[in-house]
Every structure is written in structure tokens, then in C-alpha cells.
């Protein structure tokens, strides 16, 4: 489904990714773990096509389609979703109009009719409820004045509405307390299916208690240095990242 | 606030004494002959005399600027004497031992001992007395590092190629009324050159003293930091207490070539006039620096003196990635007036500027921040942040903010904020209730207000600046 081969990328002349390989099949959950500065967030930005992140080698394909050829919005329409670590606030643009613009664009791409305003309102309200967000949030500016937890839930809400093929969760657990973490994890788990895959980027193992991965990859210095099953995450939690770096060296 | 505090009024301006030396002073008046006289006194080459005369002709066509938020009676430029020097300086003393002890004592009293063994460690001083430089310390030591630090009148002879190349290159003769006047009649000032890659081993400083009555001081400072060099420079200023107003119209030019850094600090304590607004210095100064690629110029000023201040230390950010900074504390009390601020002209890509201005108005004084931030079309990705805060002490003073923000580049980001506040009764009461006397409380609050700027001053002067503020605030509570 999502195939990342020998991906190399740089930011402001600094090489960050140095040959990343991950193969994600439908329905799988992959966790990418690694110390700070290993290139975790960059992976999410490069996959989603952020400007300023220059791919210098390798390939990314989604169901055989070359993502590197596409703009950020085109990748999103192909079914790639990045849940941000720090979702930006956009005062003046209401959450509702933002969500509708986004859902309309993706549906149009898939040859579907846009929702009517009324239907969309209904749908959005429903999804709000399922991630425990007050409906009032729909009227407010995008993420404007939201707490950390509310922003993360807004990300999951968008994920639910867009029904992507591949979801990348970029440190979705950072800054969340246990309760908020559970709400977010429940949202993610509700979206799990045979066709949908997840890449969970995280520094800590605790999120993986709730979103159980099939594979765990350790990212260090822009490369996957070790892969394993979910037990690898526990090992990392216990021993830290030092031993892996030693092992690799 | 409380009446008891009125009792604190009146502390003397500590630098207000006069030095009794015999001086050669030109009679008041300004014409070509005066300019020729000054030029001849300094034994200047022909080109410099021509340069002065050209400036004089430009000046005659200009008029006194009236846009600043200051009021003062029209200055009769024919009533000012444009040259005064102690007679003992006539023969150019070879060493400090030959300098008139009266003069040395003057600086001693001001806390600036000129004998190297007694001097502040790590600080070289050029002492300018009225129209001449009296002494420049540590010249030999600086010369070892290749640093040139000498009166500009000597630099004209010893390093003519440098002076000729850079004099007027940042502030042209016709820049403004007072700069043109300065170009015509400047008497002395300091010249600094830091060679490529050299980090100046000492703080450099110039101490300006006006002594003679009815004279103006028109000094000129030129600092050139060659590629990759670094220098920190400080100037201080005082004058005797006199009932008349005296004119000070200086020009400071800074050139920071690629990767160079100049830190320029000022503690300005010209005589501010008495509590009824009589006397004091008119301080009309043009200060500007040019930053080439990756260079940085930082202006830090603590302004407590002068009857009227008109001054805008500026940066022309010409080179890509260059940085300009302006940190200012200005305090006005009694009848003082100040219109001060900065200009940041962004020409190069990714240039950055920061402006932090803290104005404290007390008594019946009036103070304005006037600033310009300009993003030219080429200033791709440039940034400016400006914060102007005013603190009012008492209800008879004024505090004003006039920022000009101009942008012609969409990728440039400018943020400007200004606030005004007062020392609140609650704050005062809290301090008093904790046993702190009101004057001390005010000074604590004011110092806190200025902290962001004080931390930019060289260490030795930060303490002095705090004290100066305390003295200048005397009598402001009431």
C-alpha cells in the first residue's frame, strides 16, 4: 500500500533522512520510535509534502502512485493524512467551513457529490460527539484557543471525516494526559479496518498500550536501525535508545 | 503619591561643576572664516576644508527641523562659539604628564581617571574637552592588536586613506540640518578602526565634556569594523550647570563590514537644566550605522540628561542576514523634552531588527518615541520586532509614541507593540508596607521596567546606569 524506499531528504541544507525504508500493507499499524532529532517529524512532513523539505533521493508510492510528484493537497486527496503534533491555529477561518472545504475536496477527488450544508452539519456534529468535542468548536476559528487535548481531538475528528487510506500520527500523545490519550486512542481504534493503515510516530511506548502496533521501527540518524514486533517498544521503554545506538555502531 | 516623598527633592547634578582653565575660545558667530580657522587649527589637508565648506553651503540652505515633539526657542546660530580649547593644549602634550593637571582632575572628579594604572581595567578612554581631545589611554596596547583608537583630528593625518574613505559615507553632509552643521564645524571626536578578524581586546570609550560657557560641542565619531572584527564602544557625556542652553550636535558613523559586530553604548548625562527648566544642553545628534553581510550593530542607550534631546541611532541593514538592535532607556524629569527612537532600514535579505524602547516620564517632562521600520522590496524574509513601553510618573508629564512602519515586501514580518503604564499606588503601597521607602520603591520599579535594556549594557556600566536613573528620578515622586 504505502511504500517508502531509500528515502533521503534535507531541510535547509541539512540531511535529515538518509535512506528510509518502510513497507506498509493494508490494515497494518507501524510504529516509528526514536530519540529526539532522529527525523521522526521530518518523516511526516516529507510524506505529506511540506514545502521546504527537499527530497534528494528514494521514492514514496501509495497504491503504486508516486507521491513525490504531487502537491500536499493532492497527496491528502489520495488518502494520506497527517495528524499534527502541533496543529496550527487559524483565527478567522471557522472550523466548520474548514472541515467542509476539506471533505468536499477529497470527495470531489473520489468522484463523490459534496455534502449539502445541512447534511455536513449533521455529520460534523455527530463526529464531534464521538471525539468528545463540544459542537461550539465547529463555529470557532480552526484550533483557535483550543487546549492541547482539544487540538488533538480535532485532528482525530478530521481523520474520521476524511476517511483516509494511510494515517500518520505525529507524536499524537505529546502533551496529553491519560484521559485525553484514551479518547484519542479510541478514535483511532474506531477507524481501524482491513483497508486502512497507520503509522504512529512516538517517542514513548505509552501510546502503544492503546494503539497496538504490528511492527515497531526504530529511527536513528535518518534511518531505520532496528525493526521488530510490539515487544520492541517495551524493550525501548525499559532500556532507552542508547543500547540500540551502541548495537548499531 | 505621598507628600513625605516631596522631601527627597533636589539632589545636585553631580557633574555640574566647572573647570577653571584658560581657554582659547572663538567669539560667537558662524561664517566661512570660522570654518577656515577650525580647519587651520587642526592643520587639516585641503580636501577636508573643502568638504567642510561644502557642508556649510548646504547647511545655509536648510532650515531647523520642526517635526519633533519638542519646543524650544529658536536657536541663534550666530550666538554660539564654535571652537574652544584649553590653552594648555596648544602645544599638543606628548604624554599624560604634560597634560594640564586641572584637566586630568576634571576627569578624575567625573570618575574617569586617565592615568592608565588608575583607570578602569579593560577600558580605553578618549577624553574630549570642549573642542579638543585631551588624552587617549591605552593607545599602545591597542596598537599591538592593530586597533586604531585616536582623536579624529589626528587620524586625519595618520590614516588619511581610512578617514577619507569612510567620513560622511554613512551620514552624508546634507543628511539633515544638524549633521550638515556638524560637517562644517566639527572639532574633534574619536576614530576607531578594527582590522580584519580582530576582536578588540578592550572596551573603547569616549568621554565628552562641555566646559566653556556659550560654546557648542560638535564632535564626530567614526568607527570602522573591518570584516569579521568585533568591538564594544561606550560614550559618556556631561556638562557644567549653566543657566543658558548649550548646543551639542554630534555625528556618529558606524561601518560594520562583512561578519563584523559593533556594540555601541551611550550613557548620556548632559546637564538637563534645573528643576524650573532653566539651562541645559540641546542634544541634537545623528547616529547611524551600516551593516554589511552578516554584520551586526547594536545600539544601547541610557539617556537621562539634556534639556532637549533629538536623536535616532539607526541601522541601515544593507547586507543579507545583517542584524540591527536598539535598546533604549530614556528618562525625562522636570522640564526635559526628548524625542528619540531609531530607524531600521531593511535592504538585504533575511535581515533582522529588534527595538526595545523604555521611556520614563516624570515631572513636567515630555518624551516621545519616534521610530521607523522600513522593509524595502529586496528585504525578503526580513523580520522586525518592536516593543515600546512608557512609564508615567505623575500627571503633569507626557509620553508619546510615533512609530512609522513601512513595508514593501510581503515576506517581511513586522510586529510592533506599545504600552503605557504608571507606577501604581498599589505597587507603591505594597513596597511601603514591606518597609521599603518610597524613593527606593520607585527606583526598584523603574529598574525592573528597564531591565531588558540594562542587561545589554557592558557590565561596568549597567550598575552606573541604574544609579544614574536613581539620581535623575530624585524629586519625581510627589
Amino acid at each position, binding site marked *: 500500500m504505502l511504500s517508502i524506499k531509500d528515502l533521503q531528504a534535507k531541510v535547509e541544507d541539512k540531511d535529515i533522512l538518509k535512506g528510509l525504508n518502510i513497507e506498509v500493507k493494508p490494515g497494518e499499524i507501524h510504529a516509528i520510535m526514536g530519540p529526539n532529532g532522529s527525523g521522526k517529524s521530518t518523516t511526516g512532513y516529507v510524506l505529506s509534502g511540506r514545502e521546504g523539505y527537499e527530497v534528494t533521493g528514494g521514492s514514496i508510492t501509495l497504491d503504486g502512485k508516486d507521491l513525490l510528484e504531487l*502537491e500536499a493537497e493532492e497527496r491528502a486527496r489520495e488518502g494520506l493524512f497527517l495528524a499534527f503534533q502541533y496543529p496550527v491555529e487559524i483565527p478567522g477561518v471557522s472550523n466548520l467551513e474548514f472541515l467542509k472545504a476539506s471533505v468536499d475536496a477529497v470527495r470531489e477527488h473520489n468522484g463523490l457529490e459534496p455534502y449539502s450544508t445541512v447534511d455536513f452539519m449533521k455529520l460534523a456534529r455527530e463526529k464531534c460527539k464521538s471525539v468528545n468535542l463540544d459542537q461550539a468548536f465547529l463555529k470557532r476559528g480552526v484550533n483557535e484557543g483550543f487546549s492541547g487535548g482539544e487540538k488533538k481531538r480535532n485532528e482525530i475528528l478530521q481523520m474520521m471525516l*476524511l476517511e483516509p487510506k494511510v494515517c500518520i500520527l505525529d507524536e499524537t500523545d505529546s502533551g496529553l494526559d491519560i484521559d485525553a490519550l484514551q479518547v484519542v486512542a479510541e478514535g483511532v481504534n474506531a477507524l481501524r479496518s482491513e483497508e486502512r493503515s497507520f503509522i504512529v510516530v512516538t517517542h514513548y511506548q505509552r501510546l502503544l498500550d492503546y494503539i497496538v502496533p504490528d511492527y515497531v521501527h526504530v529511527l536513528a540518524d535518518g534511518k531505520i536501525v532496528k525493526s521488530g514486533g510490539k515487544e520492541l517498544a517495551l524493550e525501548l521503554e525499559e532500556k532507552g535508545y542508547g543500547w540500540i545506538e551502541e548495537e548499531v555502531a | 503619591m505621598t507628600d513625605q516623598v516631596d522631601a527627597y527633592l533636589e539632589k545636585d547634578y553631580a557633574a555640574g561643576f566647572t573647570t577653571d582653565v584658560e581657554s582659547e575660545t572663538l567669539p560667537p558667530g558662524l561664517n566661512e572664516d570660522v570654518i577656515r580657522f577650525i580647519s587651520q587649527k587642526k592643520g587639516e589637508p585641503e580636501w577636508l576644508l573643502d568638504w567642510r565648506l561644502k557642508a556649510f553651503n548646504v547647511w545655509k540652505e536648510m532650515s531647523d527641523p520642526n517635526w519633533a515633539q519638542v519646543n524650544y526657542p529658536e536657536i541663534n546660530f550666530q550666538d554660539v562659539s564654535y571652537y574652544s580649547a584649553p590653552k594648555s593644549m596648544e602645544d599638543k602634550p606628548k604624554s599624560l604628564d604634560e597634560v594640564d593637571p586641572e584637566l586630568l582632575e576634571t576627569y578624575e572628579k567625573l570618575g574617569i581617571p586617565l592615568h592608565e594604572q588608575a583607570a578602569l581595567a579593560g577600558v580605553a578612554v578618549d577624553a574630549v574637552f570642549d573642542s579638543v581631545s585631551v588624552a587617549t589611554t591605552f593607545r599602545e596596547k591597542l596598537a599591538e592588536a592593530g586597533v586604531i583608537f585616536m582623536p579624529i583630528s589626528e587620524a586625519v593625518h595618520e590614516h588619511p586613506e581610512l578617514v577619507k574613505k569612510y567620513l560622511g559615507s554613512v551620514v552624508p553632509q546634507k543628511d539633515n540640518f544638524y549633521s550638515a552643521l556638524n560637517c562644517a564645524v566639527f572639532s574633534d571626536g574619536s576614530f576607531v578602526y578594527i582590522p580584519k578578524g580582530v576582536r578588540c581586546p578592550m572596551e573603547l570609550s569616549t568621554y565628552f565634556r562641555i566646559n566653556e560657557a556659550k560654546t557648542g560641542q560638535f564632535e564626530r565619531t567614526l568607527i570602522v569594523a573591518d570584516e569579521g572584527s568585533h568591538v564594544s564602544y561606550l560614550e559618556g557625556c556631561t556638562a557644567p550647570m549653566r543657566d543658558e542652553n548649550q548646543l551639542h550636535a554630534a555625528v556618529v558613523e558606524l561601518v560594520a563590514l562583512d561578519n563584523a559586530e559593533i556594540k555601541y553604548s551611550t550613557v548620556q548625562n548632559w546637564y538637563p537644566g534645573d528643576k524650573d527648566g532653566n539651562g541645559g544642553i540641546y542634544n541634537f545628534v545623528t547616529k547611524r550605522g551600516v551593516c554589511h553581510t552578516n554584520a551586526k550593530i547594536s545600539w544601547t542607550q541610557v539617556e537621562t540628561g539634556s534639556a532637549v534631546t533629538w536623536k535616532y541611532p539607526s541601522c541601515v541593514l544593507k547586507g543579507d542576514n545583517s542584524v540591527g538592535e536598539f535598546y533604549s532607556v530614556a528618562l525625562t524629569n522636570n522640564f526635559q523634552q526628548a524625542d528619540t527612537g531609531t530607524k531600521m532600514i531593511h535592504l538585504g535579505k533575511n535581515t533582522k531588527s529588534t527595538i526595545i524602547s523604555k521611556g520614563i516620564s516624570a515631572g513636567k517632562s515630555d518624551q516621545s518615541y519616534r521610530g521607523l521600520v522600513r522593509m524595502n522590496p529586496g528585504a525578503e524574509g526580513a523580520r522586525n520586532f518592536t516593543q515600546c513601553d512608557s512609564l508615567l510618573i505623575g500627571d503633569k508629564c507626557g509620553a508619546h509614541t510615533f512609530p512609522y512602519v513601512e513595508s514593501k515586501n510581503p515576506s517581511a514580518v513586522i510586529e510592533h507593540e506599545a504600552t503605557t503604564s504608571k507606577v501604581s499606588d498599589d505597587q507603591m503601597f505594597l513596597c511601603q508596607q514591606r518597609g521599603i521607602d518610597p524613593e527606593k520603591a520607585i527606583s526598584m520599579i523603574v529598574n525592573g521596567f528597564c531591565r531588558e535594556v540594562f542587561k545589554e549594557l557592558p557590565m561596568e556600566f549597567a550598575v552606573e546606569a541604574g544609579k544614574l536613573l536613581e539620581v535623575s528620578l530624585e524629586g519625581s515622586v510627589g
Partner: protein
Amino acid sequence: MSEIISKAAELAKKIEGPEWLNSFRTLGLTQWQQAKWPTRKTEHWKYSSLRAFNENDFFATQVHRQGGDEQKLSSELFDIPGLNASRLVFVDGIYSEELSSDRYPLNVDIVFFSKAEGAHKEIISEYLGSAIDLEKNIFARFNTADLNEGVLIQIKQDQKVDQTVQIVHVSTKGESEFTAQQRVLVIAERHSESTIVEHFVSTEEIQNSFTNTATELILKDGSSLNHYRLNMEQENIVHVGNVSANLRANATLNSFVLGFGGKLKRIDFKVNHLGSGAHCEMAGVYLPKNKQHIDYHTCIDHQVPHCTSNEVFRGIMADESKAVFNGRIHIYPDAQKTYAEMSNKNLLLSHKAEINTKPELEIYADDVRCAHGATVSQIEEKALYYMQSRGISKKEAEVMLSFGFINELISGIKHGPIQNLLRPVLARQFSRDEELLKHII
């Protein structure tokens, strides 16, 4: 005296109007003739050039063009759907009975200066010119010099006026260059509540008039006035306007200001807080494009204690347009316990657009809370990327973000029909492509 000033003065001298207005005209003319024609060195006109007056002969022939073609005008130009309005329509400064409402609410007196009698005449004599500062506004001097007509709108005491009074000014293209003038005097009597809309439109893109307007708002004790100033004329209009308000004790002025650009559009606002407890709320939006120019100068005077003001202006400059904003807060000695804030944010959409902003504070009292802020930036890259990562095209995201920049102020418009009118009109300033607008309109 500059040539332009003397030429205009000659025209003003020819104007005939009610005799009882002669003293105003003489005062205006004297001051106009003493005026120095502003240049780029005149601080108030530093960023706005008056070269349009050299390029066009606005004072050439008649000062007031005769109306006449107004029958052909469609009221679609200025209709505000859903608005229950009493409408006064002026075409190039001349009142058009045809296009105006035939009935006005009972609790409002609407009187033309030329027809004023008795108490109305007295009230005009008393208040006309009382809010405007002729010293600082030279075009207001000319407006006064040339005064032969005007309209008084007097809101009666203790009355709440439900009907909005809409004053429409239509600019048309004349056969040759000309000047159109307008003078409005609004008096909100004690404890009255009302809404006035000053609505400026034009018939076609190419204009050749100079419009010079002066509006005075007198808010007496406890009155409340919602004031809308919509300068929606397009392209190459030359418009100089002045709005001056006097606020007595506990009066509230809510002002919303909108400006599209023009060849030269310059509007001065002056709000005088003269009675304690007065409050002024001002929101403004300017959206120049192409090669347009717009200049707002606002001055909020706090002359007495215990007054508040809050001013928010936002501007978006597209193409090769240029905007000027100068916002001054002036706190007089003894105006203690004043609370005044001002914010001005700007978005530059193009490399050839330009903004000059100057937020000013002039403060002579210590126990006050005053702050101002100004920013200039472009659309935030982070926000653009976030929207793109959700499948929204870059173009639509840009339009949504531009509109979002002013949306807060548009949403803040309390007057439903006006908000409904403006929302699509403003959105279309950012794109003509309805596809890109569908999520914001």
C-alpha cells in the same frame, strides 16, 4: 496661495446658498485660502500623493454638477437586501428625490439645510462645525467654503429608531472633471438609539470626480449610535472624506468602516470623548487592489476621564496597491482612568503591494491604560500547509485565509442585513472564481 487652492476658491465664491449659512462659508473660504497645499513633506500627507489634483482639473467648471441622469440609475447599486431603511440618495452630491424614500420614521427629523426653519435652523447653526477640526483638515475647509446644502438628521430624545437611515452617495462619470460635495450633520439626542449607514457607490469603473464629504456626529448624553461608513466605490475615484464625532457623557459610538481603494481615497476620523463614560468602538477593513490607494487617518481624543475606546483596523493589500493607516490615541491632561486600545494588522498579498502604518500614542495623563499594536505579514506558511494537508487546494486555502483575516470583523457586524450584504462582496475581492469562494460565502 497655490494655484489649485485659488482656483477652487474662485468656484466656491460663485456658490449661492441660504444666507444664514454665509458665516460658515466665509469662515471656510478664509481658512481655505490660508491653507498650504499639502505635499509629501506635509506630515499628514506623507504617504498619499495629491498629484491627482494636478492631473485632473476637478475645480475647472462647476463645483456641483446638476443631477439629471439619476432616473437611469438602478437601486440595485445600493440596495441592502432585508434592510428596513429610510433612504436618502445623493447623486454626485445632489439629492435625488426619485431614488430616495418618500417617508421617514416619525422619531427622526430629516431636514435639508436649504429648507430648514425655526428650531432646525437654530440647531444647525449651533452644531454645524462643532465636531470638525478645520485646522487639521484642509478639505473640510473647502467643504465649508462651498457649503450651500447639507442634511440634518436629528434622532429624537429617548427614542429607539428601528429603521436604519441609509445615506447613499452615488458617483457617476461626468462629461468633464468635477467636484461633488456632501455635508451631513447627525444629532443623536439624549438617550436615543439609532443606526446610520453612509454608503458610497459608483456607477462604473471609470470615474472623473473628486468627492469631498464631511460628516459630523453629535452624540448627546446617553445616546447610542451605530455608524457604518462603507466606501465601496471602485477603481479610480478620488474621495476625501471626514467623519468627526463628539461624544457626550455615557454616549456610545459603534463605527464600522469599510474601504475599497481608489485612485486616491483618504478618510479622516476624529472621535472626541467630551463627557465621562463615553465609549467608542471602531472596526475597519481596507482592501485595495490593482493600483489603488487608500489612506485612513483616525484620531481618538480622550479629553475627559473615565472614557474607553477600542479600535481595530485590518487591511489586505493586493497587486500593486498601497495603503496607509495612521491611528492616533490622544489622552489629554487629566483624562485619567482612560482605557484605550488600538490594533492594526496588515496582510501583503503581492511583491508590489505596500503598507505604511503609523499607530500613535500621545499621552498626558498617567492613570490610564493605553496600548497599540501593528503587524505586517503575509499569509502564514504553516496555516497554508495545514489546509493543503487536508486536501484543500492552495488557491482556495489562500482565499479562505485572506477572508479569515478580516472575518472576525465582518462577523462582528451586529447589523444582520449589512453583514449579509458585505460577506459575499468582500469575499469576491479575493477571487472572482466562485469555486474558491463556496466555503466562505
